[in-house]
């Protein structure tokens, strides 16, 4: 009665039901035998506890019972595991009386530790567990017990809280680890007879362990040693190596709590450095140093073993992982004791030479490069070739390897200061890095958001701007490159230059398009700046616009563009801002042909244009030619409405002698006439039946800007007033009402009327439209500030019913 079934997984269970169920479980647990019914109930109870977000209140006595059952010697393993699982689900739990102090059995100790470590360390549980584990490890374990189950607990303890162990305890464990790593048995283990698997006990002597390729092992046991059955110390060897990195990081260095060890540390180091080239009798070494020595040898052996061709192909993956781990650990050892650096450097240089041509080892190149970045000064090794190979060859060849891409970008982030040095090979190779993003956009976009600022400065800004806008084209180009590489050689001949290519694949081999592809797929930064030469290629790559990968990439660009401008705004000077604005206007015609992409990019570019104008208002005057050309083209209203509107607004806002002394009356007139012509074409010319109508916002902004300009150059006022008064005719004409929305036309008319009224009071208009020295929050948005001011004035002039305040 009241037991939760699988169909209603306990979420709706009431407190009362739970209590009844718990008491049922309690009575089962206290019974003579813990059979299937008990197991079943515990399983359901676990589900109940696990399925709720709020801590389930189980009776304190019941919780105690669970703990007692868990620790009792006659409890079957399945029940133990279930009790532990329930107790863990309830963590942190105040009713916990568990303590690991008296527990001898290592398996139970492991279970209990898992519960204690989940309590949030409010009562120093982590340290208590750590102490107990070390105590158990210190002594010889009783027969049948293995340290195998408690080593991982120790690893957990030190990563949660390294100071749980004293210096003494660290030394004890370090000593044992060195032994486990170096002196595990090199004979295979024997089958355990308990399983009943073998009808007769084996009398054959187990042979020696082998390497992964089957050869008999002639050196000490490692994780890459192979045996049919394993001895306990071989298991410990595996576990010791598995926790080695974390152990060395947390406990390998000097500088734990006790200050008295520091006096001797200086002396130890100097002793070490004078004898570092001779094989030291390692028994003389203190435990940490001895562990480093053994660990170093272990890593060297692993590196050698990782070149063997494994009989079981799945061991190949492990070999690579071991290689990476070994190099990383060697790096850590060298950081802790620089006397290892020379040995490591020459060793790793040889390793690099061996694997740099093999794509399956590519991920290992990263920790090798990191090692040399960390230690090449000490090693006095020229590692430039290593960095160059890593940065120029690897991204170009292996951009499609998602795991490598991820780790590569992490490597760049970790070493981001290198990318700020102008002449470094790191900085030069940034175009290559974007290939990772272009191909693997979803996992890497947030990484690039972190990393991009390191790449941006006055020297790279323009190139990166183009790169970002062309990112989806890069994705498409990489796709073409991959497919082209997969073609049989017979189809790879260069195509006839006279015949234009019909597909992207053909274009890849076409002499005219070849250099365009090469530019897009370049590995090095270049100062050459001619984006318009990519126009034919962009058009051709448009055929891949619906490819999912290209679309995913395109979605990342607006985010990166916003970030780009945010960072650039912090350091850009006038000339750079001008350059960007000019390019912005130019590139608005030269974007990858993906519809949603273009709209998003326009949206970002237009709002960023405003930001740039605010930073450097004089650009309106300095770039008057380009801006006149852009704002005078009626086609821009339809194709790039957002950019057009913001450009026109910027003209209205910033074309003033207040922002730039060089703004002459002639300048204002030039802009005025250009915009007037556009507005005329848009509103006064008889529209063709096919004309879809122009964006109302553009019309509004044109009117507003013309008014602003007239307010500054007052002899223009009659012209504008006449124009504005004609707007009534415009909005009422039948050709227009059929094409535009009624609300839009109303809005246009209201705006025109407001502006007209304003111009009736020229001195007021001037005040309203003169840019204030300190811009208030009213002048922020394109259309928001103006209506506010206009409505205020209109209310003063014509308090008609339509404009009641409020």
């Amino acid at each position, binding site marked *: 009665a009241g037991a939760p079934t699988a169909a209603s997984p306990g979420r709706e269970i009431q407190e009362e039901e739970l209590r009844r169920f718990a008491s049922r479980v309690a009575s089962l647990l206290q019974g003579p035998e813990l059979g299937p019914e008990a197991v079943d109930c515990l399983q359901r109870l676990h589900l109940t506890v696990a399925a709720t977000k709020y801590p389930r209140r189980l009776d304190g006595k019941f919780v105690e019972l669970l703990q007692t059952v868990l620790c009792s010697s006659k409890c079957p393993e399945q029940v133990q595991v279930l009790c532990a699982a329930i107790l863990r689900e309830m963590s942190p739990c105040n009713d916990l009386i568990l303590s690991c102090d008296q527990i001898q059995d290592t398996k139970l100790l492991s279970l209990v530790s898992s519960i204690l470590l989940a309590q949030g360390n409010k009562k120093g549980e982590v340290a208590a567990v750590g102490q107990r584990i070390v105590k158990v490890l210190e002594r010889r374990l009783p027969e049948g017990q293995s340290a195998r189950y408690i080593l991982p607990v120790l690893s957990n303890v030190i*990563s949660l809280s390294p100071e749980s162990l004293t210096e003494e305890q660290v030394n004890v464990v370090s000593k044992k680890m060195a032994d486990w790593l170096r002196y595990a048995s090199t004979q295979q283990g024997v089958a355990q007879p308990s399983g009943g698997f073998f009808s007769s006990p084996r009398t054959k002597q187990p042979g020696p362990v082998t390497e992964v390729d089957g050869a008999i092992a002639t050196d000490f046991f490692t994780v890459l040693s192979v045996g049919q059955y394993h001895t306990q110390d071989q298991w410990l060897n595996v576990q010791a190596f598995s926790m080695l990195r974390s152990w060395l990081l947390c406990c390998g260095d000097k500088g734990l709590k006790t200050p008295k060890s520091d006096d001797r540390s200086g002396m130890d180091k100097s002793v070490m450095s004078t004898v570092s080239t001779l094989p030291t009798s390692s028994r003389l070494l203190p435990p940490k140093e001895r562990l480093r020595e053994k660990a170093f040898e272990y890593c060297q052996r692993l590196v050698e073993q990782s070149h063997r061709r494994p009989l079981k192909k799945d061991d190949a993956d492990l070999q690579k992982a071991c290689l990476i781990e070994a190099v990383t650990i060697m790096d850590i050892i060298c950081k802790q004791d620089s006397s290892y650096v020379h040995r490591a450097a020459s060793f790793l240089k040889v390793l690099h030479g061996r694997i740099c041509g093999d794509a399956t080892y590519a991920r290992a190149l990263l920790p090798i490069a990191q090692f040399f970045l960390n230690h090449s000064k000490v090693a006095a090794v020229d590692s430039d070739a290593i960095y160059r190979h890593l940065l120029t060859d690897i991204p170009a060849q292996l951009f499609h390897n998602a795991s490598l891409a991820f780790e590569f970008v992490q490597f760049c982030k970790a070493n981001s200061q290198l990318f700020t040095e102008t002449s470094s090979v790191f900085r030069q190779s940034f175009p290559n890095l974007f290939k990772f993003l272009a191909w693997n956009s979803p996992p890497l976009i947030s990484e690039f958001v972190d990393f991009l600022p390191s790449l941006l400065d006055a020297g790279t800004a323009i190139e990166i701007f183009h790169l970002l806008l062309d990112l989806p084209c890069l994705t498409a180009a990489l796709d073409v490159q991959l497919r082209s590489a997969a073609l049989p050689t017979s189809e790879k001949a260069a195509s006839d230059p006279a015949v234009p290519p019909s597909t992207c694949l053909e274009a890849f081999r076409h002499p005219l398009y070849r250099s365009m592809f090469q530019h897009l797929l370049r590995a090095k930064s270049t100062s050459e700046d001619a984006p318009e030469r990519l126009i034919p290629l962009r058009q051709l790559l448009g055929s891949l616009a619906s490819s999912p990968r290209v679309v995913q990439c395109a979605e990342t660009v607006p985010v990166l563009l916003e970030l780009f401008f945010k960072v650039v705004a912090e350091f850009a000077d006038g000339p750079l801002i001008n350059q960007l604005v000019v390019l912005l206007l130019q590139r608005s015609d030269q974007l990858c042909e993906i519809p949603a992409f273009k709209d998003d990019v326009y949206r970002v570019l237009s709002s960023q244009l405003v930001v740039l104008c605010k930073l450097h208002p004089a650009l309106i005057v300095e770039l008057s030619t380009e801006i006149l050309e852009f704002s005078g083209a009626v086609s821009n209203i339809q194709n790039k409405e957002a950019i057009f509107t913001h450009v026109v607004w910027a003209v209205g806002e910033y074309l003033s002698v207040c922002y730039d002394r060089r703004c002459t009356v002639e300048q204002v007139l030039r802009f005025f006439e250009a915009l007037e012509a556009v507005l005329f074409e848009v509103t006064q010319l008889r529209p063709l039946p096919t004309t879809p109508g122009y964006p109302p916002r553009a019309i509004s902004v044109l009117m507003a800007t013309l008014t602003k300009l007239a307010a500054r150059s007052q002899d223009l006022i009659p012209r504008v007033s006449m124009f504005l008064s004609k707007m009534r005719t415009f909005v009422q004409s039948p050709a227009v009402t059929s094409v535009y929305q009624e609300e839009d036309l109303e809005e246009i008319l209201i705006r025109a009327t407001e502006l007209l009224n304003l111009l009736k009071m020229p001195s007021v208009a001037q005040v309203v439209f003169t840019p204030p020295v300190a811009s208030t929050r009213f002048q922020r948005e394109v259309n928001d500030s103006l209506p506010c001011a206009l409505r205020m004035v209109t209310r003063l002039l014509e308090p008609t019913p339509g404009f009641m305040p409020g």
Partner: protein
Amino acid sequence: SRQVASQCRLLQSSSARPLSPQLPQLPDDPIPLQDAPGGLFQLPPGDPFPERVTVAWLSVVAIALALVCDPQENLSLAEITLRRLAPRLLHSLHLLGPGADVLLRPEVADGLLDRLLPHGEMLFLNQHFLQAVDREL
């Protein structure tokens, strides 16, 4: 898990793989899944873990598994560990079969994790050690 699901969907859509509607028959032996889609991504601090973490994920038919790692852990080993856990979990828990059995057998999952990922520690197990683990289970 939401993040893993969206990463998985994005990866699958980018590679344009057709998703087979039927559930395939599982072979009896645990097999490593070399071609199953998977990947790596990072989660910033606070969302939802207090520290920055890296997530390795693997998708097998309709199930996704995620392994949350500290940034300095060995990601190659994480991917290997996932590829070993996946078929064994699928097999032991009959994850592709009908019924909510998996929720009622936490000790099975715990047992597997205890051997292959004890206390969250990834192990460098070669194939023979892995076979020994399978024998113990």
